[in-house]
């Protein structure tokens, strides 16, 4: 686990909100609660960094559903997904000092942070069935920690590129990727829905992902050669 953020008591002068509502050990006022609802994610993260842990609840309310969707898709199990999302927020709280608003928005940081933990959870769940330890741990050290820099793109760019490449795929490849990634179906479930064999579904998935890989890697390497990023 990461370091526990400093407590509010460590910063007696900095825990007074902009609106002048002070967080007290006995609880925070209604105005304080309302104020939190109107703060940006980054301001709430700053509050967390100062030790005002209540901001975590607001951030959870704002982003838990996005994270839960990712976790449910990745883990394919609601209970595991809930556990992973809760753990992600607790880990994010403990690692909040790593968040640097100069490098990007809080949501981006949280999504990347969550993806990393949820992926770890998936791999360890899968590995427990076949291995004593996670077989990919030793294969994936360079990928993590996952950041926009290691991805090679900002998330808005990712959105555009994914959309473009998906449009360029053959319809059956695109459909397979959308069913697997956006609807969370397994290859078997896709097979039942489309009438294709599981082997064909897996092949379409591989071909589609391979084209995505080529597009992303080509763009990253050309940008790197241009030296403009």
């Amino acid at each position: 686990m990461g370091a526990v953020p400093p407590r509010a008591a460590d910063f007696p002068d900095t825990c007074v909100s902009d609106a002048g509502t002070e967080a007290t050990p006995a609880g925070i006022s209604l105005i304080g609660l309302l104020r939190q609802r109107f703060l940006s994610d980054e301001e709430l993260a700053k509050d967390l960094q100062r030790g005002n842990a209540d901001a975590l609840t607001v951030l959870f309310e704002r982003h838990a559903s996005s994270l839960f969707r990712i976790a449910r898709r990745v883990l394919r199990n609601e209970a595991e997904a809930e556990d992973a999302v809760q753990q992600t927020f607790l880990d994010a709280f403990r690692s909040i000092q790593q968040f640097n608003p100069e490098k990007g928005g809080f949501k981006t940081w949280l999504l990347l942070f969550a993806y990393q933990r949820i992926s770890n959870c998936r791999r360890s769940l899968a590995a427990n069935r076949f291995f004593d330890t996670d077989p990919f741990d030793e294969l994936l050290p360079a990928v993590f920690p996952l950041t926009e820099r290691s991805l090679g793109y900002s998330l808005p760019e990712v959105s555009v590129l994914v959309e473009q490449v998906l449009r360029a795929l053959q319809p059956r490849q695109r459909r397979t990727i959308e069913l697997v990634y956006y609807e969370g179906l397994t290859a078997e479930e896709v097979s039942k829905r489309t009438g294709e064999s599981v082997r064909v579904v897996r092949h379409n998935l591989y071909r589609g992902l391979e084209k995505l890989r080529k597009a992303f890697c080509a763009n990253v390497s050309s940008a790197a050669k241009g030296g403009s990023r």
Partner: protein
Amino acid sequence: MTSNHKYFESLCALAISDELTGPELVELHAHSLECVSCRDRIHEMTKIDACLLLSPAFTRQNARLPKGMRERFIARAIKEGVPLNSPSTAGLGNLGLASALFIILLVTAAAIRTGPFSRPVVDASHFDAAQLANPVRVASLTPPGSTMNLRPGRKDRSRDARSRSVVFQWRPDPSSGFQARKSGALLGHLEPFQNRYFPATFSSPHYTLATMPSDLGRLSAWPDMPPRFRLAVPQPLIRENALLLLADSEHGTAKPMIIPSQFTFATPGAQGFHLALDIDPYRAHPIFEVGDTLLKFHFVENVTQ
């Protein structure tokens, strides 16, 4: 590489999307321990997996949380030592906050209707294409070298309830060669951008992303953009039918998700090449227009939402 290696490449892709059987996973693991190429492939595929799952196309669709998940989270957080000051906030919940908000809104609305803040009612039905084509206010031009300027801010707009658009104009520096090309390929390239809506996503500290309608084709076919604009849209940021404009909040990059009423829209490479825009803090659509010597960007409030 053999067809056998192709087989392992396909396993790399399927492993990331969790579609491998147990024996396949074991097989891939054993192979990848000795095969650098497959290890690299797994790295790359992991990034693709992340890109697919983190793309807004996926994350913008929120899932319904299991009932009581928020309360369970708060209980777990407290149990694990997170110093939540007010577990009672769980009890207050959204209903209490909504009630408080409702009361505040009622009081505010009453003050606005009867108090010094009262103003003419905006008739959204007047917001039409003709109005877009003839924006109410146009900024006075800055000298060519500084290229952009701004129109008056929110206070001025409040005097005229029909001022629905915010316009800034760009007069390219004549020395950049824009004049020589304006009647040629440049106008041809920019013509499709006249009076079109471009949904913009202000979701990054560094980029304003304007997704272009697909029928406009590839932006990379803009070889004749004037130099300053080309600086604003460097090639690596052009992804076929999307235009990424470098933007920066005047408040710094710390608040990228918030569009303040005074939003600095800056392009790199030109000192002072930024302007404050009085744009709607929640919804805005940039519109590109081309005149004889002007390239206009309209940020128009989306009054329909």
